[in-house]
């Protein structure tokens, strides 16, 4: 896809694991379309899946009345993904550090850390109600 091209996709999905898989697959497609290498596309897909899983599980608590939305935007050299839920919200500053010795053997708590490790930008925004997370990866 040529530099400067902007494309957009938006998905409104129910709060299920199937929806997490759909977000992963969509992220993989758009990462490829944006020209990312297979390895980076795979990381982008994984991280988008982490954000979608959080929206489904922690945010909407798999409530069948609630939806998650995912958007994908290829703008110039970057892929921007947003994932939003209708849950109670979160304070990103309170998320425990999974690298701290006392957390190293926990069986969860590595999702947001992986997002930050693999993406160039990770931002949380409070919705009313819910959380929107924005993930940006730039081609270098």
């Amino acid at each position, binding site marked *: 896809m040529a530099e400067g091209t902007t494309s957009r996709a938006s998905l409104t999905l129910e709060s299920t694991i199937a929806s997490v898989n759909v977000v992963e697959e969509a992220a993989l497609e758009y990462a490829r379309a944006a020209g990312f290498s297979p390895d980076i596309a795979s990381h982008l897909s994984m991280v988008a899946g*982490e954000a979608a899983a959080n929206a489904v599980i922690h945010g909407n608590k798999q409530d069948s009345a609630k939806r998650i939305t995912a958007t994908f935007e290829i703008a110039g050299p970057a892929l921007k993904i947003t994932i939003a839920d209708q849950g109670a919200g979160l304070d990103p500053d309170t998320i425990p550090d999974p690298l701290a010795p006392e957390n190293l*053997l*926990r*069986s*969860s708590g*590595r999702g947001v850390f992986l997002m930050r490790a693999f993406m160039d930008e990770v931002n949380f925004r409070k919705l009313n109600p819910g959380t929107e997370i924005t993930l940006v990866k730039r081609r270098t």
Partner: protein
Amino acid sequence: MSMKYTTRQVDGVTILDLSGRITLGDGSVTLRDAVKDVLTKGSKSILLNLENVDYIDSSGLGELVSAFTTVKNQGGELKLLHLTTKVHDLLQITKLYTVFDIKDDEASAIGSFAA
């Protein structure tokens, strides 16, 4: 799509040859059940061969850690064999590389168990 595995016994060690994806949902549940099953059958020396596991997410990492602590709490040992670069990198950035005993060679991995 999700994870599959086969089981082998070599010199008192149970080797699980895993393939596919260890992820939220099916893959993680399969790993948990597999390890439980081995423990139930009385084997406490478990080697997870990850050669054909090309995709792990944070749930899958969590399941690996759970399997490790479950086996350890029962007085056993769980080690990892043949990491792909992708999985290796994931264990490195999450510092889980320091938690697991990770092996490159099957024969010496088997020899390393307390027995």
